Every structure is written in C-alpha cells, then in structure tokens.
C-alpha cells in the first residue's frame, strides 16, 4: 500500500484511539468527572499520541533507510564484471536496472518471459511501453531488476505491517495505562513542549545550516583567491568564468562594492529618516484618532509593495526624471543641455530605496513613541510646554534608544536590499563620490555572478558566497549593535 494511504490509516487509528481513550476514562470515572485527574479529552489525546507518534517516527525512519538497503542489495546482485569496473559504472548500471525494474511492471507475463529467454529486445520492448533506456540493456539487468522489484514489494508489505502494528500496539499500551489518577494532562503537556522545541530547533538549525554552507563555499573561494586580495582589493573585475579554465584570472576587490553599498544605503537613510521620523511624530502626537486610523495603514501599504516594483519605478520614472531635470537645469545655467545625473545613479537608487524605507522608519518609531508613558506628556504639558517642546525635550529623548534601534534595523535592510539597486544603481563597480554617477552594490554583484549557466567550481561563481557571508556579517553586526544601544540606554532611563 502507498505511503499516503498508510499515513491515512495511522491517522484513522489515532482518531479511534482518541475516542477509545476518552470512553475508557469516562468509564473509569464512573460518570463523575471530578474523580479524574485529567479531563477525558486529555486521556483521549494521550492515547492518540501513543498511537500516532511512534508509528509515524518508525515510518519516517523506514522510508529513509529502506531505499539505501535495497540499493546496496541490488548492487551486490550485479555480476562481477560490472562490479570490477569501479563506482561510476556500478552506479550507471544500478540506474539502468531501476529503469528496467520500472518498465517490467508495465509488461505482460508473455513479454517478460520473451525477454527472459532473450527472444525480444529489451530496449525496444520497453520503449514501446514508454520507458526509455539510456543504453542497450544487458541480459543480467532483467534478473537484477526482478530482484529489485521483489525486494521493493516485500519491503512495502513489511513496512505497512510493522507500522500498523506499532500504531495499534501503542494505542493499546496507552489505553491500558488509563486510570482515574493517571496524569494524562501532564503527559500531553510534555508532548506539546517537545513539539514546540522541535519547531524552534528546526528554525535555528536551518540558519546554522545556511551559514555553514555559505562558510564552506566561501572557504573554497578563499583557497583560490587570497582573503587579503578580496577584502582589500580596490578593483572588481572578475572576467568571465570560462568553462574548464579554472584558476583565478580576474580581480575580486570587495572595496568598490562595499563603498557602493554603504553610499547608497546612506543616501537612502538620508531620505527615509527625516521623513519617516516626522511622519511618526505626526501620527503619534498630533493626528486625531480618526485620521490616524486611516493614514497609518495607508503608510504601511508602502511596506507591502514588492521591492521589484520599486525597481521599475526607479528605472522607468525616477531615473529618467532626474536625468531630464538635470539636463534642463544644466541648460538654464550654462546653456548646455547636457544631463549631469545619470538615469542609473546612486541618487536614483538612494531616493527610491529611501521611499521604500519610510514606512519601516515611521511604523517602528510610531510604535516606540506611543509607548512613552502618558504621564511624561502630561507632566511636560502641565508645566506649560507646547506640544513640540514636549516632543523635542521629553518624548524623543525618552524614545531615543528605541528609535536608534529602529534606525539601525532599517539600515541593515538598506544594506541587504537587492531588487531596487539591481535596476536603479547600475552595474559599474567604481569607487567615486559623485552621487549622480552609477555605482554598484554587493547584492547586485551576487545576482550578476549567479545568473546564467554556472559551474560551482570557478572563483567567478564562488565569489558570490564570499560576498554573501560578508553582507551577512555586516547586517548581523548592525543588528547586534542596535540591541547593544537599546540595552545601554534602557538602563539609563529606567
């Protein structure tokens, strides 16, 4: 029977166990619920957990282990002539055997016997049934395939039988445990705790796994290019990854990319921080509740726009607008209608990214400002301070640690932002300070190095991992620093 059907059966057994457990606890209580330590529902859940959990775990383990065992056994059944030719040939043969095994299931008994006697061609017979073989089949493959099929079938039945047995046995064991003073509630609670821990460790382990894989790939990159050249190189010229050429033929200087990243993030913050902060102050301190209830969600809609859309906006609207207006300005002043702002520039990317960041700054700051106790506002107003004096001298200082934290979080978003800069900042890895010229960022180069047909052996592609881990360290550092600042100021104020 199929795995999904088996799972369904386990769940059904679980359901039945639940009701059986409930009924048994009712019976034990003699109709008086107060006799029970735990409510009947807990007894039911306890039995159901015993029925489902061990069976499901065994099923999972079996599904992982069985194919490994069957493959090994089939490999051993291959003739010595194949075995002696080394690992690659064995794996190739095993693959073919598996295709043949899949094909054999579709053949009638006569066709199979014709194949066994050698009177029919294996490849053409199977091709007629829609199973393509990579090469001409060898005669031994039919026997091996039949061995494979037989083992698979036995395996299926064995697995189904054992798993179902475990489910029933688990349920039965749990039902026997049920008694009036049995602490089913505590047991269920422990299972809940366990599942919560599993869920959080999956999240953490995934992060650890991602970092580990980035580190190992970056490590491979650093065996080809020296870290000194990468971190302190001022020229970014990776060349193309010519297939098979290998070796480091390009120059992988991080500095121009880092400079572009930080410059664009800085310009973006220059736009986002004042606007976002002022919007937050207005929303928190001045706006009437009715205005606030409509304006705040509207502002937050900005945060929901996919960044690629901001990218179009930069590419199609803001970039050309800045270019044209700069041409007009130049013309008015010097008479020479030559634009001095490029369509793709630090300024374009910075402005559009700043627009994207406004809702982050305003929403986070707004939450922090409204958390400042009302007593402080009243105290200041009661001394005859105006609203803006109160905001400036009491509310903002009190909210400062939170606001600084919010700004640093926003900055780390700006550093990691990709789609806007891909479209708006350009791809020229240059070091310069003119905001009207294109520059490029770490994220843009990661995208560049990883698009197209790739082999993950050349430094041209592996450099993406080194860039990625650098970016990760920067944002991590910003976040840790944000937490540090928040904590330091909190001690001072509370």
């Amino acid at each position, binding site marked *: 029977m199929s795995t999904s059907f088996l799972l369904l059966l386990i769940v059904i057994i679980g359901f039945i166990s639940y009701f059986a457990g409930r009924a048994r606890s009712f019976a034990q209580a003699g109709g008086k619920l107060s006799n029970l330590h735990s409510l009947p529902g807990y007894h039911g859940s306890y039995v159901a957990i015993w029925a489902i959990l061990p069976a499901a775990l065994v099923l999972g383990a079996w599904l992982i282990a069985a194919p490994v065992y069957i493959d090994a056994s089939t490999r051993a059944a291959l003739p010595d002539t194949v075995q002696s030719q080394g690992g690659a040939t064995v794996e190739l043969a095993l693959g073919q055997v598996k295709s043949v095994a899949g094909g054999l299931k579709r053949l009638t008994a006569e066709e199979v016997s014709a194949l066994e006697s050698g009177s029919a061609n294996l490849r053409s017979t199977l091709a007629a049934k829609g199973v393509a073989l990579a090469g001409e089949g060898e005669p031994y493959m039919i026997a091996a395939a039949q061995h494979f099929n037989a083992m698979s079938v036995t395996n299926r039945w064995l697995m189904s039988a054992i798993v179902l047995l475990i489910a029933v046995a688990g349920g039965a064991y749990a039902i026997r445990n049920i008694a009036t003073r049995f602490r089913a509630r505590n047991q269920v609670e422990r299972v809940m705790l366990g599942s919560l821990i599993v869920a959080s460790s999956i999240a953490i382990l995934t992060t650890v796994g991602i970092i580990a894989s980035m580190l190992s790939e970056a490590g491979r990159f650093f065996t080809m290019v020296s870290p000194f050249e990468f971190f302190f190189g001022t020229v970014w010229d990776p060349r193309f990854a010519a297939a098979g050429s290998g070796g480091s033929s390009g120059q992988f200087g991080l500095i121009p990319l880092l400079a572009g990243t930080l410059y664009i993030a800085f310009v973006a913050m220059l736009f986002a921080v004042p606007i976002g902060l002022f919007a937050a102050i207005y929303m928190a301190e001045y706006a*009437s*509740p009715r205005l606030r209830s409509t304006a705040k969600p509207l502002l937050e809609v900005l945060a929901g726009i996919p960044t690629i859309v901001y990218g179009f906006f930069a590419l199609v609207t803001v970039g050309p607008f800045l270019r044209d207006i700069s041409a007009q300005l130049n013309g008015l002043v010097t008479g020479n209608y030559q634009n001095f702002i490029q369509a793709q520039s630090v300024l374009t990317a910075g402005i559009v990214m700043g627009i994207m960041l406004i809702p982050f700054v305003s929403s986070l700051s707004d939450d922090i400002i409204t958390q400042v*106790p009302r*007593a*402080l*506002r*009243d*105290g*200041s*107003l*009661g*001394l*005859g*301070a*105006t609203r803006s*004096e109160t905001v400036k*001298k*009491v509310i903002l*200082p*009190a909210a400062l640690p939170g606001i600084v934290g919010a700004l640093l979080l926003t900055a780390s978003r700006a550093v990691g932002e990709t789609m806007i800069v891909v479209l708006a900042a350009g791809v020229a890895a240059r070091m310069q300070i003119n905001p009207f010229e294109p520059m490029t960022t770490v994220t843009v180069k990661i995208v560049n190095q990883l698009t197209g047909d790739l082999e993950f052996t050349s430094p041209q592609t592996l450099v993406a991992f080194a860039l990625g881990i650098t970016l990760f360290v920067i944002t991590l550092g910003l976040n840790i620093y944000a937490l540090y600042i928040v904590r330091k100021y909190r001690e*001072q*104020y*509370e």
Partner: protein
Amino acid sequence: MNIMSEAAVEKALDQKMNTVPYKMIGKDVSVYYGEKRALFDVNLNIRENTVTALIGPSGCGKSTFLRTLNRMNDTIENCRVTGKITLDEDDVYDPAIDVVELRARVGMVFQKPNPFPKSIYDNVAYGPRIHGLARTKSEFDDVVETSLQKAGLWNEVKDRLHEPGTGLSGGQQQRLCIARAVAVSPEVILMDEPCSALDPIATAKVEELIHELRSNFTIVIVTHSMQQAARVSQRTAMFHLGNLVEENDTDKMFTNPDDQRTQDYIMGRFG
C-alpha cells in the same frame, strides 16, 4: 520662636478665612466627555494662599474639576467645558488666552510621580528653560537650588544633581515633581492625589511641604484621604456624582458639615 510665629500667622489666617480674596473663580462649570456629562454647573471659588482640598468618592468629578483649572482636559479627545473660570481677572477659556502661558501660571503635580528621563537638575530646569526664566548658568543654578529647597529635597540630592531623576525613591520623585512645578513660579499649584502612590513616611513629608508652600502659592489638592484633607487644607469642597455638595472651612466641614451627604461620606458610610 520661628515656629511659634508661623503658628500664630496660621491661626490668624484661619480665623480670617472668609476675608481672604479669591484667586480663581469657577462659575457654572460643566464638563462633557463626548455625550457623558461629568460635571454639573459647579460653582467653586479658590482662595488665595490657601490649600483647598477636593474630596469625594471615586468618579465624583473632583479630578475633572481640577483639570479644568489649567485646561489639562484639552489634551483629552471629545472633552468639552462650559461655564466660566477666571484666574485673577483673566478668563481661562477665552480663546485669546495662551494655554501655554496659563499652565505656566497654574502648575500641576500628578498622581504618579512622573520625572522626565533626565538628570535631577534638568528636571527642575525644564520649566525655566522653556519659559526663558533664567539665562546664565548661575541663574539656572539659583533657580534649581531654591526650587529644590522649597520642595525640601535639596539636602538629599545636592551631591547628585546630575544623576537621573528616575533613580530617586517614590517620595523623592514626587517632591522632585513639586520642585519642577515650583521652578516655573506659578501662582496656583494643582495636585491630583499627589500621595496616593507613596508610603506613609513619604506622604508625611509631602504633606509638610504642602503646608509650607501655602505661604507662596495657592494650592488645590484632590485627595481620597479624609485625614489628609483635614491635615493640609483650610478649605474643603465635597463632590458627589458630578455635583459640588458643599464647600466650607475644613474645620467646620469635618466637625459640623451642613450637608447630610458630607457627614455620611466623612463618617465612611459610602464612597
């Protein structure tokens, strides 16, 4: 000698209570929170250099009345005030009056101590700074010192003026808030249950302070404690369900009130 003369002054003041001029006059004051009416045509006058206690059960409107005196109700949405309140000759609710200036003349101390998250010095200097009452460093130092002395806090904090005000104990924080209010040199100080968050010893200190402040300021205090009203005030006003029940000399109020409800409340029969 000094104590004797003060007591003598006090006695003289108490006896002449009915001749003390009015500092603030409330005429037909009503307050609405949206549709709900919280105060019903209250006529209550506040005498100069006197401590006036507002008492009554919870929700009777005493805090609401207090907050109308310096327009702190303005900060509450949907709050509407009718009637007339004057401070000396000025109409408090005249649109022409600057609410900021009004609050500098009528200061306020709140129920919970609410020092700003700044140093003790900056807390006291806050008001003088925004109102431009001092200019040089030494002028500020003077204002801070005299205010803290008036609030009876100077000796406890003079060595740590630049530590955060939030680091003080509850009672000290409340006296810091009083010093902060005093620093603006207001004419009237409103106190909204200033001792309700304090322990008995801190309460005694604040009460003593209120007693002393009376010579320079007109004080209106809302309190839940009958004993406190009796201890610190010369006039007492009793509120019930948004109405002013009775207003009288404190001595008379607590010994021989005119109104049966006052009698019942003071005896602890309701509230």
